[in-house]
């Protein structure tokens, strides 16, 4: 056992060094030259939240039936932004590092991991804002909040899977970024971020069930359930607790394994094809 750990340590020694340094560099460069610097990590989601809140709560009254709608909305936005940041960044990640790839042989997956770790740190910073709003909004924290890491880990893994797939595909097919942009636009509205799932159920329960097959929707709803309100409609409350409650999780695992395998099989040729 100890030998296995030692071997793994040796094998990934270089990757870990590289990953740490690249994440640090990424953070240093992120707000390079801006006056407010890291504060923008907090301000960006905050302003988006303010705009959406004014439009959807005050004008369209979308949050009427949802307890703690502001926090509910903010958490959804923060998680969606993370997903968007990792996947959008993942599309171009490999090609953007083409210069380096043509000059040095190093494990390519480190590039994709750098993007997701860097975004994940950003996500954790954003949770500070979420926490503040929870206090302001009088959300009473339940023991279930301890389960929050589970949906976060699921989101982390799923985002990486998509980033692996898109990044490897983009090397050959340079249309992927436009296609992904459109998918993300559509998916934003097909995911219950702004609106309550109960609206959809009123119209058609089938549509609601279909929407919840999307792992990101399931993750966002689960995060809201454990952190904000147990009234949140989750995948389980919609589908019951049969074996099929594992479908989104299965999608995440199978897709990520396939994506990583695809990425691995293509990575040796990246330097030539970029």
């Amino acid at each position, binding site marked *: 056992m100890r030998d296995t750990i030692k071997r793994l340590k040796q094998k990934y020694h270089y990757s870990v*060094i590289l990953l740490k340094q690249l994440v640090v560099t990424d953070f240093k460069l992120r707000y390079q030259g801006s006056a407010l610097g890291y504060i923008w990590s907090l301000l960006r989601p905050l302003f988006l939240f303010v705009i959406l809140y004014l439009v959807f709560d005050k004008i369209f009254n979308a949050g009427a039936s949802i307890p703690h709608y502001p926090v509910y909305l903010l958490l959804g936005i923060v998680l969606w932004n993370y997903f968007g940041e990792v996947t959008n960044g993942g599309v171009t990640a490999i090609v953007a590092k083409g210069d380096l790839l043509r000059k040095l042989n190093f494990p390519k997956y480190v590039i994709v991991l750098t993007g997701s770790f860097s975004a994940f740190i950003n996500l954790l910073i954003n949770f500070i804002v979420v926490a503040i709003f929870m206090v302001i909004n009088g959300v009473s924290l339940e023991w279930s909040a301890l389960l929050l890491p589970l949906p976060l880990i699921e989101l982390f893994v799923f985002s990486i899977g998509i980033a692996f797939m898109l990044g490897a595909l983009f090397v050959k*097919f340079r249309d992927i970024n436009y296609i992904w942009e459109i998918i993300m636009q559509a998916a934003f509205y097909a995911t219950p971020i702004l609106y309550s799932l109960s609206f959809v159920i009123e119209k058609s329960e089938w549509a609601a069930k279909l929407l919840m097959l999307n792992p990101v929707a399931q993750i966002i709803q689960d995060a809201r359930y454990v952190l904000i309100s147990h009234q949140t409609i989750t995948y389980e409350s919609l589908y019951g607790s049969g074996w099929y409650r594992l479908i989104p999780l299965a999608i995440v695992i199978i897709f990520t394994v396939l994506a990583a395998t695809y990425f691995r099989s293509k990575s040796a040729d990246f330097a030539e094809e970029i």
Partner: protein
Amino acid sequence: MIHNNEVTVSVQNVSKNFKLPHEKNNSIKTIVTGLLKNKEKSFEVQHALKNISFDIKKGEFFGIVGRNGSGKSTLLKILAGIYQPTTGSVKTAGKVVPFIELGVGFNPELTGRENIFLNGALLGFTKKEMTDMYDDIVEFAEIERFMDQKLKNYSSGMQVRLAFAVATRAKAGVLIVDEVLAVGDSDFQKKCFTYFKGIKRSDTTVVFVTHDMNAVREYCDRAVLIEKNEIQKIGDPEEISVAYSKLFSDSSSNKQSEAGKDRWGNKSAEFTEVEVISPVVRADQKDLTIKTRAHVNRDLSGAVVGYNVKNESGTILMGNNSTLLHQKIHELNVGQDVEIEWTIPNIFNAGRYFIDVSFTHENGVDVCDWWKDASSFVVDKEPGNPYSINPEVKMTYKKVG
């Protein structure tokens, strides 16, 4: 230093083909339309390397030489693991670190200090290891004062020095070096030479790519010559450098070889012939003659003709012109032809040399025809030392007191 017969790099039957598509096939549209048209695959296969095999021993300083386009850069990238061979295999013992491109991953927006740590991580050093050797690196690069400045404010010389300083720390089993000996000013070059001399004495295996045959003779234990994507010769660096030089004399026998690009002037007079008799200079030849012929296109007064001899790295070794030689060229009239010959003592070492010729008038102010690399010659002899010029030198030695 070679200790034993342990092989560090083993290249077995390596071939590399590149598929060069006729039109770039990387958008969905071209693929869809391509499928609909059902046309034949439109790419050419370029054979960048054909059946390359060699072994490099531990501690060996191994040279790779070849002309541009011969495939040596592809070979280097395969050795570094950046490209995969189409067939065959490369086995290396120990970590391969490419010195190929200095400052890989340097970011202009980061400070010198931050770039050192970034570059170090790419070479596989932990933050702690880098902190320990940080002072040495800065001292080697001689840019203490600028470490907290952003890299974009560095001069190119400073950037190269910084990159070189980090790269010298690389603990590699195999170090791949591509033409980096000539960086920085002469003081810094001295440091680099000292470093490479040190490397040569160490256990590190070095794969060294260059066009400079003097460097091949000075550093390499063995070398390989790649020509037309195949190994033409492998072995003793002396023989390789002569073989390399001969490649050029073969192709320059049609006199004007690869010249023509670097030629300018107002054509009031132009060279019609520039030739070295004979283009392969033997050791027993006392001197060699540069023979030129020029045609005069308008009446000229005060014409001056001159030449330079350069070595492979483009350094001018010697030169002269009619004024310096106190030869007055009288009035020239339109339609005339002139013949100029220079006879130079054969003081050159083995290698290839290039000749520039110039035809000016109004005492050098007005350029009629300036022709860089108008011709070349190869000296074929046993080199007595690694330098370009090797005239007979007398030395006396006695003990005093």
